[in-house]
């Protein structure tokens, strides 16, 4: 009997390299004759380049060449090119210089004479909605593929309401209603109305998006920082308009992405194009300062919320309007936010309106729990406020509004495969000792007040239909080919475990193959949307099941009897005719050819899998299959977060004392790593809610908060001293393994538990603005709000 792998704490196979300095991230690769690129970044938020004179720069010793916007693939409409002569945010790359070293390249950038024509810009999306307000683009502020640009404004009446602090009744491009919100509000025992601002914030993974590239003939060797791997090769090929099979994409390690490097990055095109031009390897090292600009950010929200409750605390109606700060190239968070509000509070009657506004701020992208994390961090304290006003226990109001298995949500009444939010809340209540904590809520210790709060956060957690591919070689080992990325989630190893169990392998005989497209990957997901755990435990399970069938057939052919008489485990197959090692089986599979060695492939695998499988065919017994397990409904995971804080009323400083996070994410594959995801995501959410501000100079449109110390993620001294995690551990019934993803839901839980606990420490008052930095809290405590109710990017 082979060891049990699902549910065990097994360090990932790449850990040794990570802790000895051998792990190579993109900036750790070198190539003979490698030169350095440096970018010229736009000094203004919206402009047109009128003239560039690079003659002095090009004459400098050591400067090799320059790459201009007209030499890179251009994009129409509000879509990003890697270099541009019409920058739409301060920090957008205009051109790149290659030189023998980085300092020479930087000096050359300084020597370039460049003349910009400044253009009108907008930083706060509400300003672009005002009649006569500025637009982020010369041609308008809304774009559709069919109709092109248009100028979308709200009315004077809308803004009369906005300016008077009332909820407006504006037209919005996205507008859906279910049930009858107006009638439901009339029946509500309590209606709360709030205006809310959620800031934008930069992803700031530890590894900036540095990368290196060189060409050998028609083949591009790209050493990149990306969350995904197989899909990044195709994304880069698409961007550069070259054949994907002419790219050797190396992505062994990625120093974090959090949504900012999903299928690679825009800047990864620059070394590839510059290298092709000068015929030398090019390293583009991105500094932290540059990362702030080109590194992506979570979109901010300005929101009006009306929430109705029955006497018992049940939410019966929601009216939600979101204006999203989308940067120059757009984002989809607000749509998800509307869906998640309906899912989490099950009002039955809901109207959602939303508008995505282009702005001249750094580009936006999905950031861990996009849309969900923002809306949950804003709405959970308001739900708790309703509990207080109605005299309903705050735990109970979360529990009664949480969805059950029959939930239908969003405009098209989406369903879920499984939901155990209530179980997560119940387990968290016990682990946190909610009742005892509630007893000390509001307790004073000098100037410090204790607050406790809860945040319940869902997020999508899986997809279906990817391919799995693995091969048993004559050495008897199982080689699992993983086209997903290696960004720190350990999923390259953990999603192979159920497959190894199907084949009865001991973990030491399983080799994970990843990190270099020359090693052959099956069609994989992008590593985003918390899909990977579900998608690739399923795909690998399917491929392992295919391998198991083939092993038995090869054994029966060799030893006699029927395939079903043979069992497989610990590297051997045995049955009535005797036993063989899987190494011997692999040799026989090679000799038999056909489907056994991968020379004949299943007809339903993806076209992208075929060339990869052909690279491996004939080298052993191949297990290869598409995930055809099917399933109905969306796959979502949940985290219930419980926080206790102390708010110092004299300084506005919040100290996190305790945090408990309990997840419903199905079968637990790797407990220790699951705990790390729950804590890590929750703490990122706490940073979002508490420390990471985005501040712009409104006059010039340039950011002040552009480094770690000005938009600070949580450090060791910011996190709660006491942290606990738990898992409901109920397998998803529609899945062969039962595991759901976990990357994203903790962010909203950590943020919302904190915003709820801070509101509790303030006697139930919701500040309705993030981040809740000490100066903002102090101003609120002292009754002198620092900013206009709905201003964005002021802190």
């Amino acid at each position, binding site marked *: 009997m082979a060891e049990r792998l699902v549910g065990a704490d097994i360090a*990932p196979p790449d850990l040794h390299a990570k*802790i*000895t*300095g051998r792990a190579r*991230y993109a*900036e750790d690769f070198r190539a003979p004759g490698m030169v350095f690129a440096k970018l010229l970044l736009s000094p203004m938020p919206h402009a047109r380049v009128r003239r560039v004179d690079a003659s002095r720069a090009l004459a400098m010793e050591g400067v090799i060449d320059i790459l201009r916007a007209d030499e890179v693939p251009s994009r129409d409409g509000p879509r990003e090119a890697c270099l541009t002569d019409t920058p739409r945010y301060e920090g957008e790359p205009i051109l790149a210089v290659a030189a023998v070293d980085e300092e020479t390249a930087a000096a050359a950038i300084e020597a370039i004479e460049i003349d910009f024509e400044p253009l009108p810009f907008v930083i706060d999306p509400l300003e672009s909605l005002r009649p006569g307000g500025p637009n982020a683009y010369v041609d308008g502020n809304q774009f559709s593929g069919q109709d092109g640009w248009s100028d979308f404004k709200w009315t004077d009446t809308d803004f009369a309401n906005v300016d008077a602090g009332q909820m407006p009744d504006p037209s919005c491009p996205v507008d859906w209603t279910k049930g009858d919100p107006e009638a439901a509000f009339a029946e509500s025992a309590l209606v709360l109305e709030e205006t809310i601002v959620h800031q934008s914030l930069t992803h700031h*993974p530890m590894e900036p998006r540095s990368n290196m590239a060189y060409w050998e003939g028609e083949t591009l060797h790209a050493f990149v920082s990306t969350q995904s791997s197989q899909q990044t090769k195709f994304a880069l090929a698409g961007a550069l308009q070259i054949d994907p099979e002419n790219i050797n994409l190396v992505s062994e390690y990625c120093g*974090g992405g959090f949504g900012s490097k999903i299928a690679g990055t825009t800047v990864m095109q620059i070394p590839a194009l510059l290298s092709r031009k000068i015929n030398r390897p090019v390293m583009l090292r991105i500094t932290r300062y540059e990362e702030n600009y080109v590194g992506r950010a979570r979109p901010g929200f300005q929101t009006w919320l009306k929430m109705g409750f029955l006497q018992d605390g049940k939410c019966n109606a929601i009216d939600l309007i979101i204006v999203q700060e989308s940067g120059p190239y757009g984002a989809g968070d607000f749509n998800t936010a509307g869906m998640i509000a309906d899912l989490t509070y099950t009002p039955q009657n809901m109207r959602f309106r939303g508008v995505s506004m282009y702005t001249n701020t750094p580009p936006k992208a999905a950031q861990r729990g996009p849309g969900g994390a923002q809306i949950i961090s804003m709405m959970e304290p308001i739900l708790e406020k309703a509990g207080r006003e109605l005299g309903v226990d705050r735990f109970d109001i979360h529990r009664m509004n949480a969805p059950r298995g029959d939930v239908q949500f969003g405009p098209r009444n989406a369903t879920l495969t499984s939901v155990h939010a209530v179980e997560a809340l119940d387990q968290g209540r016990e682990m946190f000792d909610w009742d005892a904590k509630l007893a000390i809520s509001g307790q004073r210790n000098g100037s410090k007040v204790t607050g406790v709060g809860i945040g319940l956060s869902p997020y999508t957690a899986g997809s279906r239909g990817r391919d799995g591919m693995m091969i048993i070689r004559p050495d008897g080992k199982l080689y699992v080919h993983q086209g997903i990325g290696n960004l720190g989630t350990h999923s390259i190893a953990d999603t192979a475990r159920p497959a190894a169990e199907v084949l009865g392998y001991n973990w030491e005989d399983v080799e994970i193959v990843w990190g270099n497209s020359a090693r052959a990957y099956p069609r994989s997901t992008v590593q985003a949307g918390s899909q990977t755990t579900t998608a690739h435990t399923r795909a690998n399970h399917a491929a392992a099941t295919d391998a198991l069938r083939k092993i038995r057939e090869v054994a029966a052919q060799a030893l006699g009897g029927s395939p079903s008489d043979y069992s497989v485990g610990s590297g051997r197959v045995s049955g009535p005719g005797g036993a063989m090692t899987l190494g011997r089986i692999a040799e026989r599979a090679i000799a038999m050819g056909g489907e056994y060695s991968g020379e004949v492939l299943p007809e339903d695998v993806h076209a992208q899998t075929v060339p990869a499988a052909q690279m491996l065919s004939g080298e052993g017994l191949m297990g290869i299959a598409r995930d055809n397990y099917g399933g109905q409904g969306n796959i979502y995971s949940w985290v219930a977060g419980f926080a206790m804080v102390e708010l110092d009323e004299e300084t506005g400083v919040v100290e996190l004392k305790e945090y408990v996070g309990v997840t419903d994410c199905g079968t637990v594959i790797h407990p220790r790593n699951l705990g790390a995801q729950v804590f890590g995501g929750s703490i990122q959410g706490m940073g979002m809610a508490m420390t990471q501000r985005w501040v712009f100079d409104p006059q010039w449109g340039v950011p002040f908060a552009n480094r770690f110390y000005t938009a600070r993620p949580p450090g060791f001294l910011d996190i709660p001293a006491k942290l606990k995690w738990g898992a409901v551990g109920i397998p998803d019934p529609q899945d062969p393994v039962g595991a759901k993803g976990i990357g994203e839901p903790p962010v909203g839980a950590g943020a919302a538990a904190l915003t709820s606990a801070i509101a509790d420490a303030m006697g139930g008052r919701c500040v309705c603005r993030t981040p809740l930095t000490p100066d903002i809290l102090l101003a609120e405590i002292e009754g002198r709000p620092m900013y206009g109710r709905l201003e964005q990017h002021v802190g």
Partner: protein
Amino acid sequence: MDQEESVSVLEEKYSRRTFIKGVIATGATASSAGYLFRGSPLLGAATYQTATERLITLNVNGQERRVDVLPHETLAMTLRYKLGLTGTKLGCDRAECGACTVLIDGVSQYACSMLTHQVRGRSVGTIEGLEDADTGELSVVQRAVMEEGGFQCAFCAPGFIMAMTEMIEVNPNPTREEARLALSGNLCRCADYDKILTCAMRSAELARSV
């Protein structure tokens, strides 16, 4: 260590002023250029002929290494681009994140904010030097991290491991709170802090049992 001493030690270790003083002392201009990489062999010998540039000997991981170093070159750049020691990571370029933490005479320092000329005659320890050179045996800190499965993306890991290596020397028997303070100069964006702290405590435990 009393409060006053600890503050002055911290200033000595981390202040930008110390760094800039160092830049001036070596005859270079204090500018952002210090954070960049200069000195490609592709530029030819001309690069190395000004008066303040020189071939120096560094003691890195117990080995004497001869290297051409510019006056304003940071230790991180020398390690990564001239000595091939890419285990030391650059996360922020200026003393905000600790990914480049190395040990100078056993004391943790940010290699991005220390000039290579400042470490002449001192011992430089990097992540690559922690294993036993002959046997490949991991250091106690590395063993602890393997046991506890520490780190996620691990871009911060080399810096944290160097800081832990110093911590168990300075305070062999830390409380969790003391370990948290000792490692607070390093940032982990995955926020794997709880597990990192467990690794630190296990490191100290293993070191005591050796």
